[in-house]
C-alpha cells in the first residue's frame, strides 16, 4: 500500500515536471537566411547581438545552410522588422525568415 502511494505520488510529480518543462520550451524558433556567414568575425557579431537581446533563449549558426537560428523564451515573439534590424545592425541583410512554434 505504502509502495503504491509513493509510486502514485512520484508519477504525478513527474507529470507535473514534464508539464512545466514543456511550458518553458514553448517559445518560437526563427530560421533566418543570411548571406556571407563564412567569416566568424561576422557570424559571431550576429550571434552576440541576438544573445544580448531580451527574450532570446539560444542562437545557432548553420554555416552549411547559411542560417541564423534563434529560439526564444516562452511567449516571446519578434516581428520580422525587428529581426531585420538586428541583422542589419550587425552589417548583414536578412534574405528571408521562417518561424515555428516550439
Amino acid at each position: 500500500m505504502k509502495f503504491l502511494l509513493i509510486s502514485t505520488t512520484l508519477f504525478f510529480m513527474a507529470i507535473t515536471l514534464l508539464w512545466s518543462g514543456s511550458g518553458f520550451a514553448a517559445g518560437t524558433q526563427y530560421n533566418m537566411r543570411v548571406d556571407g556567414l563564412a567569416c566568424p568575425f561576422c557570424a559571431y557579431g550576429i550571434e552576440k547581438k541576438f544573445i544580448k537581446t531580451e527574450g532570446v533563449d539560444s542562437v545557432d549558426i548553420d554555416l552549411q545552410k547559411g542560417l541564423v537560428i534563434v529560439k526564444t523564451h516562452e511567449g516571446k515573439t519578434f516581428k520580422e522588422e525587428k529581426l531585420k534590424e538586428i541583422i542589419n545592425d550587425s552589417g548583414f541583410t536578412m534574405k528571408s525568415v521562417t518561424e515555428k512554434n516550439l
Partner: protein
Amino acid sequence: MKKILKIIQWLLFVVLVLIGVIYFIWISSAQEPAYILEKTWGEKGSAKGQFNEPTGITVKGKEVFVSDSRNQRIQVFNPDGVILRQFGMNNLERPMSLTIAKDELYVADYFADQIKVFSLQGDYRRSIGRPGTGPGEFSIPGGVAIAENGDLYVPGFTTQRVQQLRADGSFVRQWGITGEAGTFGGKLRYPTDVALSKDGTLFIADGYNDRILAIAPDGQLLTKWGGPFAMNIFGPFNGWFATITGISIGPGGNVFVADFYNDRVQKFTPDGVFLNAFGIKSTGPTHTSIAVAEADDGSVFVADYANHQIQKWRPGK
C-alpha cells in the same frame, strides 16, 4: 572588314599588355622554398585537446596557446600538439586573437567587449575596457597588441577603428573613424587584428579592405599593401588578400597574415615584400587559416577554423 580585324588586333594587344603590367607589378612570386606541412592536431569536440572553432594562436618558447572560442577556453600545447593545460572557462565568453607580453597572456574577448589578462599558467589577472563605442570602450574587439611601455592597441570590428590605450585602459588616440567603414580618408573597413614589431611599427589587419597598414610610432602611415594600390581589391594572387582575419610578427620581424577566404597564410617582409604563401584548402562552406604565429625555430602554427585543428608548418630547404 579589314578595319574591324585591325581594331580587334589592337584591342587584344592592349589587353595583353594590361595583363602583363598587372602580372609584373602586382603579382609576386615566392622568394623562399615552399613551407612543408609537418603535422596537424585536434578535431571538433569539447574534450581536452579538441576544439570548437579555434580563432587565435600565439607561441611563447615551447608552448602554443590557442583560443578555443566556442569552448570558451584557452588550451596550451607543446610544439608536437601534446596538451599541457587549459584555462579561462570561468572568465571567457568568446576568446579571439591572443598576444603575450611580459609573461602575461592578453585575450580579446569578442562577447565581453574586454581584453582579459591571464598569467601564462592560466591564473586570471584582470580585465581592461568596457562595452561601448566611446573612447576607451570596446565593441566586439577581435585582437590586441601590447607595446613595450604597456600600451594596448585594440581593433574594434564594427566600430571601424583601432584604439591605443594606456595599460589602465585610458584612451590615447585612434586610427579610423568610429562607426564609419571606408577605404580612403583614413578610414578602415572591419579591422580584425593588430601586431607590433620590435621597433614599434603597428601593423593593422584592415580586414574587409583586404590590406595591411603599417603605422610608424608617431602615428603616420609608413606603407600599405594588398592587391593593386591597396584599395580594397581582393583576389587569390600572391600579395593579394580575401578578408584578413589575423596578423602576427615573427621573431625575425617578418609579417605573417591569415588570408581567410583564400585558406592560406602569406608571409611578407616588414616593408610588404611578398615572401611565401601556404595553407590547406577548405572543402566546406567556411575557411581554414584564421590566425597564425611563428615560433623561435621558424615553425609556423596556424589556427584552422574550418577543420577545428592546428596546423604546424616548417620552412622548406
